């Protein structure tokens, strides 16, 4: 969904049409959920957090000043919510991912719109391993790779969402990718 569509929905919601907000939820629920899940590693907890983020977004919609894209503003709320959540609940900061059970928690789907699936090396097991290794990265690298390589945020949007400077964004992306590549090579991928 483009930012223009997002803004139209925002206008409708501010005019009193609460049901219009379902368009925002449908478009962003998986994006928010993926980021949140990478923080807590628990499906139900991530679901609760995602829903709280949407409620919070709805409640603070009047404060959206349209200085940035709606998606960037929403991601900022998401990142801040997760930071505050982490402060409240320290326990998940040290929970390791148990290898081999990722597929049971998630319904990992391979996109069907690939040009040449036969040529692609990515299958369900590979995705599970990639997910495990990605989620085992240090928090700063994992977070930035999710925003960049999964959600497709631009470097400038990441700067705004995370509140760090551009060079830090670049360094974290380099190091995160290098670290992930090294780990996947050790497991026989890439």
């Amino acid at each position: 969904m483009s930012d223009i569509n997002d803004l139209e929905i925002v206008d409708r919601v501010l005019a009193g049409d609460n049901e219009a907000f379902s368009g925002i939820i449908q478009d962003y629920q998986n994006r928010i959920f993926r980021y949140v899940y990478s923080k807590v590693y628990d499906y139900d907890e991530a679901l609760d957090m995602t829903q709280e983020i949407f409620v919070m977004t709805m409640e603070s919609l009047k404060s959206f000043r349209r200085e940035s894209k709606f998606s960037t503003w929403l991601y900022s709320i998401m990142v801040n919510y997760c930071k505050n959540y982490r402060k409240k609940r320290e326990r998940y900061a040290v929970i390791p991912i148990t290898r081999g059970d990722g597929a049971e928690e998630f319904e990992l789907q391979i996109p069907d719109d690939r040009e040449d699936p036969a040529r692609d090396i990515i299958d369900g097991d590979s995705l599970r391993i990639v997910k495990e290794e990605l989620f085992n990265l240090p928090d700063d690298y994992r977070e930035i790779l999710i925003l960049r390589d999964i959600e497709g945020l631009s470097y400038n949007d990441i700067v705004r969402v995370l509140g760090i400077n551009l060079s830090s964004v670049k360094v974290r992306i380099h190091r995160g990718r290098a670290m992930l590549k090294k780990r996947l090579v050790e497991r026989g991928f890439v």
Partner: protein
Amino acid sequence: MKIEHIEFSVLSDFHDDMLSPEKREAVLALIRECAACKKEYEDLQTLVRMVSCLKGMGIKNGDEFTRHVICLIETRRTRSYFRKLVPSAAVAALIVFAVGLDYFGGRSQRTETATTMTSAPSVDLPRPSINGVRAIHEISSDYGIKKTLSILRSNSARVVMMSDSYIEGEAPARGFNNLCREFEAAQTHASYGMATPVSMREPEMAQENSVYIAEQFAASGARDGGIVRFRVNLR
């Protein structure tokens, strides 16, 4: 750019189109020429593609989730609306409570006064104050000023004003009947030709007494509740 192989960070920037046009051209040329650099770049592309495939992860039942969130938003909004009314409701409750307290408190005070009047019909107790002006009960005393002050003191009355002809003061409503009876007794004795106490007009003594009486009055007044203003006319 004089390098044998391209650094991973430069390849990463190249992949994300974060290099200047000149540097980008240089990296592109190296990738074409160097097989190792080309392999490194292809590995990076594969890595990014694999990570991006995790886009498939998501909420299992998105529509249900959407409906649930919308319901939650509506519920919270309603709750928030009522929560905003809480301060107003609290103020309204306080006002009602204060008015009720004033009404019932005043009524109980009137009831107490009425009870006192019923138990001592011979004494005409003052009516409750009207517009803040309390009625003064008139008493006649055949005693001298010293004895009168002594009687007032023994009944925990407080002298407010004193002259040669009268003493004004306040007394607890509950003990006011006894006070009146003592002065009436003196009148009875006088009517039967009994001697009345010699009048003594000593303002200093009265002042001392009034201080003592004031302390007593404060204690008993606080304990008993209502007060009665009176004027003792000296003969």
